[in-house]
């Protein structure tokens, strides 16, 4: 179990983390008809937007309050109001999610107060849901910003259920709060698992219809899909709330309290043991002691895949750099097959799951730490986002891309490493990366053997054929 260490140094070399507002914006994009709005300078938004565009290969409708020198000094309330008015005019959103940035947080604005005042005054904004999350860039990582945004959505849009006048809960409806690392394809896989037991999930947020990469019929300037706005208040009537990833603990607790329902946090859904736990919870919720044939078959296939892949993964020394929830999910699945994480680098100290990562130490660090740790630990494989390619190149190691951003490959939204099927694909992916490693071919010098004598080599030109 990992001890979190924070290197004492001033310099970050090749940063691992993406900042919190970006995570918040990504979460907002999983709400139907949404436009995320950064309260900050124009550049904050531009960088985050380009980052997401390159990862998802989609137009990202991210807007900005475009703080300037004067508004930064005098206060940004007017900028917020103007931004909302302009976005309404241009994109007709049904939801605007505001994320603060380091700039406005450093100034110390009371945005919730200002926002209350604006919304009370501007009756014309009445058709619009506006949510605000405090996500200063200087605190936490992508998954923290995402979690803060989801918490803010729950807080603003899910009403407190009155225990006395509470309607009968919809017993076959379940809330699912995925953490930032859960991809669109993974939400689909989780959806498939839940529905297999006759349950209906509400995902908050739901990137599987928003950023799954589909060609829409129209240009909207808003998110392309996501959690339906009317489904969010309905979450109070679900039978249970499941969180996928420890970073969603807070949002899940809040939602559970609003609806008076049980809450269960699944730190990961990658790996046989983790998926078994999830299936067990689904069986309990569905009131069945059985599982559909398709699920049984998927599990048996995962078992077989584990046996096939353990030859490559057993004893595999690897280094991983990712946000805490993702680092935990992937490393615990690999530990189940005997892999050894020689270096674990993570991006946020806020998530207690870090302590459960199967490694001696987890460094709150950067990709420079990944490279150094992999070199020192004689790793044979790296797991990180796309920027890990520099370390991979320097070390001559294969890189399995995981997390955000993956901007040098297509199909980041299709990566699925959860559930029995996703775990199977992940194990094959790791094993194949090992198999494709050019170091596999033995050379005499690997064993300290002298080269063969030149005399034995065939070097004479052949007689020209007739």
């Amino acid at each position, binding site marked *: 179990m990992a001890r979190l260490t924070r290197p004492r140094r001033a310099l970050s070399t090749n940063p691992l983390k993406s900042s919190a507002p970006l995570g918040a914006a990504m979460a907002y994009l999983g709400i139907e008809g949404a436009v995320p709005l950064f309260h900050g300078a124009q550049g904050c938004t531009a960088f985050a937007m380009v980052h997401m565009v390159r990862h998802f290969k989609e137009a990202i409708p991210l807007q900005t309050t475009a703080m300037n020198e004067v508004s930064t000094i005098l206060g940004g309330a007017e900028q917020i109001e103007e931004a909302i008015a302009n976005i309404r005019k241009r994109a007709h959103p049904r939801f605007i999610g505001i994320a603060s940035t380091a700039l406005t947080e450093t100034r110390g604005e009371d945005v919730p107060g200002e926002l209350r005042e604006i919304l009370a005054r501007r009756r014309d904004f009445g058709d619009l849901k506006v949510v605000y999350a405090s996500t200063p860039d200087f605190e936490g990582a992508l998954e923290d910003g995402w979690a803060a945004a989801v918490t803010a959505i729950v807080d603003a849009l899910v009403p407190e259920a009155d225990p006395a006048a509470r309607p009968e809960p919809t017993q076959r409806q379940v809330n699912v709060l995925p953490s930032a690392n859960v991809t669109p394809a993974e939400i689909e896989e989780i959806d498939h698992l839940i529905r297999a037991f006759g349950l209906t999930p509400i995902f908050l947020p739901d990137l599987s219809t928003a950023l799954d990469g589909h060609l829409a019929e129209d240009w909207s300037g808003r998110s392309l899909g996501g959690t339906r706005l009317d489904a969010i208040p309905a979450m109070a009537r679900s039978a249970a709330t499941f969180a996928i990833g420890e970073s969603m603990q807070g949002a899940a607790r809040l939602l559970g309290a609003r609806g008076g329902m049980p809450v269960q946090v699944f730190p990961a859904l990658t790996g046989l043991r983790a998926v078994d736990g999830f299936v067990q919870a689904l069986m309990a919720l569905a009131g069945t002691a059985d599982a559909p044939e398709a699920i049984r078959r998927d599990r048996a296939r995962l078992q077989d895949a*584990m046996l096939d892949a353990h030859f490559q993964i057993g004893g595999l020394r690897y280094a991983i750099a990712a946000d805490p929830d993702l680092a935990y999910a992937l490393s615990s699945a690999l530990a189940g097959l005997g892999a050894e994480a020689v270096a674990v680098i993570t991006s946020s100290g806020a998530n207690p799951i870090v302590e459960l990562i199967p490694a001696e130490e987890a460094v709150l660090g950067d990709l420079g730490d990944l490279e150094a740790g992999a070199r020192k630990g004689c790793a044979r494989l790296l797991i990180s986002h796309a920027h890990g390619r520099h370390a991979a190149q320097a070390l001559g190691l294969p890189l399995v891309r995981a997390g955000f951003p993956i901007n040098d490959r297509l199909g980041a939204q299709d990566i699925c490493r959860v559930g029995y099927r996703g775990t199977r694909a992940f194990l094959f992916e790791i094993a194949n990366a090992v198999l494709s490693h050019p170091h596999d071919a033995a050379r005499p010098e690997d064993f300290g053997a002298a080269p063969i004598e030149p005399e034995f080599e065939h070097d004479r030109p052949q007689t020209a054929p007739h």
Partner: protein
Amino acid sequence: MSDALKQTVQEAFNEPGCATNRAKPAEARKKGCARPLTPGAAAGGCAFDGAMITLQPIVDVAHLVHAPLACGGNSWDNRGSASSGPMLYKTGFTTDLTELDIVMGKGEKKLYAAIREIVQNHAPPAIFVYATCVTAMIGDDIAAVCKAATEAFGTPAIPVDVPGYAGSKNLGCKLAGEMMYRHVIGTVEPERTTECDINIIGDYNLNGELWQIKPLLDRLGIRILGSLSADARYRQVAMMHRARVTMLVCSHALIGLARKMEETWGIPFFEGSFYGISDTSQALRTMCRMLVERGAPADLIDRCEALIAEEEAGARAALAPYRPRVEGRRVLLYTGGHKSWSVVSALQELGIEVVGTSVRKATEADKARVVQIMGDETHMYENMAPKDMYATLKAAKADILMSGARSQFVALKARTPWIDVNQEKHEPYAGYMGMVDLVRAIDRSVNNPVWEEVRRPAPWEAARPATGLRLAATSQDPAPGPVNDPKDFEDC
């Protein structure tokens, strides 16, 4: 079968150098040593396969399979023989005969053209032309084509007239050695020779096993002049007649070649193994003694003993940390050749219990050795059908199976650790460092958490008896002791 091939096969069976053969009465000897295969219950390769296994590791030669696609196409690039240089041996060359080629009798012409194309495009030191069932049956005279091609193109084209139906894989290995004796060995003179030149026959440098041994030889000043066929160059095969001593690596298949080389060029040979610590030491000792007998400096023996002492101490020290991790584990060995039980004593030294071993290709002397190491005969299996092996493993009578790839899935489906010890394996286990690697592999496999993971009951099984867990022993387990079962599915 052509008369010439028939005679070659007959000669191969009548091998005076072979202890098994000598032990047989004259009548049985005539029948040869290949057991007749049982239709519907046979597995393992053909004679062509055996010839390819023996010769294909010669790395700078173009290996041309004269056949319809299956023989070459379904078998190429499937073995782990490593090369320190040329990679031509990994290229799959075949004449890919079509129906029209066969019906119209165009095989020989196509073969001649194929040889020409190889010479033009790759200029190899030699081309080995493999006959196969179909081309032998339609009467293609590959010897004549090779002769004509050699004269025309100036590159030796060597006929390997070992069609698959001639017999077993083992016979194919023998005949491949015979082809080298007839056509290659003795055709090139080395520029220089030393008093410490040796041949190594019957090693294939699987994943670099030769290189685990070579540093030992380098340190003793022993030079591998001739090799059949670990990391071998064509010239090394052609120069084999100038070595001082031949080491025959755990293989009865090539003993005929070793004997003929002794008779023709006076090169004495010995059988040895580089699997296991004591066998490696024994092989080095014998090698040095024989070299000294043939004129090498006498201090070679002392240097050899010093090297052995150092290496054995190093290996034992490297193995010690693994003892607590592997102690008490029970291993079932299932493989051909005697390489498997040459590691038995080393495993026992680490506290591993060997619960059974196959003796399918063992000589009587080998069997006696197993009895000596393991106490009695009850742990020797002749053959074990996959179903019986599955039952044995499922009943947890062994914690780990060491075998060739064909029983890999028997072990895995029984949720039992498996170590590959045959020629398709991906890790080298030769010599002192190889033994440490093998034990490391056993540790890595048997202590992998995956076994506990895959044996855990599914969520829907939690309330019921766990079918994923291992069953107690049942009466279905096979009776121990030698059984002569023709259902031989794991071949060496």
